[in-house]
């Protein structure tokens, strides 16, 4: 049976804060990127990504010798293939010096593009970036084989070209399944399923079933059966404005409504989550 807890102690609430801070995008338009979610581990801290975006914008305006992009969870430095190598290097240092401490711990890929001939000091560049900025070069892309050979000697991954699709993209964060948004009453016998989160704007009647890989949110009365974390995610939660379910399931756990009628309606929305080996219901 459900364990209803009138009011969670403050410390408990804080402890469970991450669960409450659900990242759910705008309801009317489920977005592709829904922020950090289950299983998605951004390789770059979100804060850094934002800052990089600013720097990138500035860099693109400042010069055509050099372009910065986010790529593979790190930086992609496009170094102009036609300009003199020294000018390109100067522009690079100039740009990196602007926020010198910012780069520490980041990784980058150098893109030499169509540059012919191996420029002097290319072999030393990774070491210099590491030393001056703490920026680790993990790969170098170059169209010409002799350039790639030189890099191979330096012990770096050498790419003939960057995959066009990847070059255009923002930092690669594996996107969680798009949340499913449904407006209206879910009636007896109807089943709604979602790989990710499931959001219902309306009531879910007894005999209806909701199944989601992630969380379930019902902006209405939940009278039917809801199964969150259906693929085994015990961290999933079920939230409803009025929680009156026949049965709740989270991952492999099942809880049923008490016999002899439901307790009086809560004045607040309620959240069901797993604590230990049981599904508990908390007032929000």
């Amino acid at each position, binding site marked *: 049976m459900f364990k209803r807890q009138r009011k969670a102690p403050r410390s408990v609430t804080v402890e469970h804060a991450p669960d409450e801070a659900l990242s759910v995008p705008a309801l009317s338009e489920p977005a592709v990127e829904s922020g950090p979610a289950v299983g998605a581990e951004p390789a770059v801290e979100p804060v850094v990504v934002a800052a990089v975006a600013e720097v990138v914008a500035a860099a693109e305006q400042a010069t055509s010798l050099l372009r910065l992009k986010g790529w593979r969870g790190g930086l992609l430095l496009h170094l102009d293939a036609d300009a003199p190598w020294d000018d390109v290097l100067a522009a690079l240092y100039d740009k990196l010096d602007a926020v010198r401490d910012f780069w520490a711990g980041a990784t980058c890929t150098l893109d030499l593009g169509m540059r012919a001939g191996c420029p002097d000091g290319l072999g030393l560049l990774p070491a210099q970036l590491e030393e001056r900025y703490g920026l680790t070069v993990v790969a170098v892309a170059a169209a010409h084989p002799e350039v790639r050979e030189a890099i191979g000697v330096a012990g770096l991954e050498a790419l003939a070209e960057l995959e066009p699709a990847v070059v255009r993209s923002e930092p690669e964060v594996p996107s969680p399944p798009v949340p499913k948004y449904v407006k209206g009453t879910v009636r*007896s*016998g*109807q*089943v709604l399923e979602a790989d990710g989160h499931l959001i219902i704007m309306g009531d879910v009647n*007894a*005999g209806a*079933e909701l199944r989601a890989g992630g969380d379930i949110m019902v902006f209405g009365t939940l009278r039917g059966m809801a199964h969150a974390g259906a693929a085994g995610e015990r961290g999933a939660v079920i939230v409803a404005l009025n929680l009156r379910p*026949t*049965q709740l399931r989270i991952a492999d756990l*099942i809880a*049923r*409504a008490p*016999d002899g009628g439901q307790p009086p309606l809560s004045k607040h929305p309620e959240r069901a989550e797993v604590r230990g080996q049981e599904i508990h219901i908390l007032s929000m």
Partner: protein
Amino acid sequence: MATGRVIVVTSGKGGVGKTTTTANLGMALATMGEKVALIDADIGLRNLDLILGLENRIVYDIVDVVEKRCKLRQALIKDKRMPNLVLLPAAQTRDKSAVTPEQMKELIADLQSDGFGFILIDCPAGIEQGFRNATAGATEAVIVTNPEVSAVRDADRIVGLLEAAELRNPSLIVNRLRPHLVKNETMMSVEDVQEILNIKLLGIVPDDEAIINSSNRGEPVSLHEAAKSGQAYRNIARRLRGEDVPFLQFDEGGLMGRLRRFLTGVR
């Protein structure tokens, strides 16, 4: 070989009280010590779990069993009052085509080999696939009807269909009888119904407000000693077990009824 009796509760017409009858007979038989299994064959419109107050315990259903997602034993819900009563619930999210008559027969054979003495099948309204599924594995039929022309007409059709399906000698339960309406001749009497259907009468259940309440609370009325309808269901269960139980006499209750009977000399 298995000897459990397999009885389908059917009517043709909807709303005459098949599900209530199934729940109450099952409960009454269980209280008499029988090992009883109830099958809700009304896939897509399941109700029997509600009447028994077992809805919140459903994890697997009949479709899960026939599609082999679970074992039969896992889908059987033990009643919260009577451990010797189990329910095999219908699926709510599917339709009648999810089960075939052959699968029903297999399922019933499995229940029989598990030692259930009575297997009652709650048949859906209608004469389509749901009816064919529900009657497939049955060896006996109980027809529920109300004392009104449309219900009796449909019951007659069902008797014919059962005969065609080799289910002979069905017995009759006249449900929702209102004695005072029969008395002033605005309602068909049990005799009127029998004259048309001409099958063995198994029982008469009076229209009773207690049934409304008990259905809503998931407490079959046959558990209530005081209710007249509960007494009627218990009597029917005893007759099913082979006892000879006289039919209830429905007199007008209350002081006015007794006074009228006294004055008019009618018993």
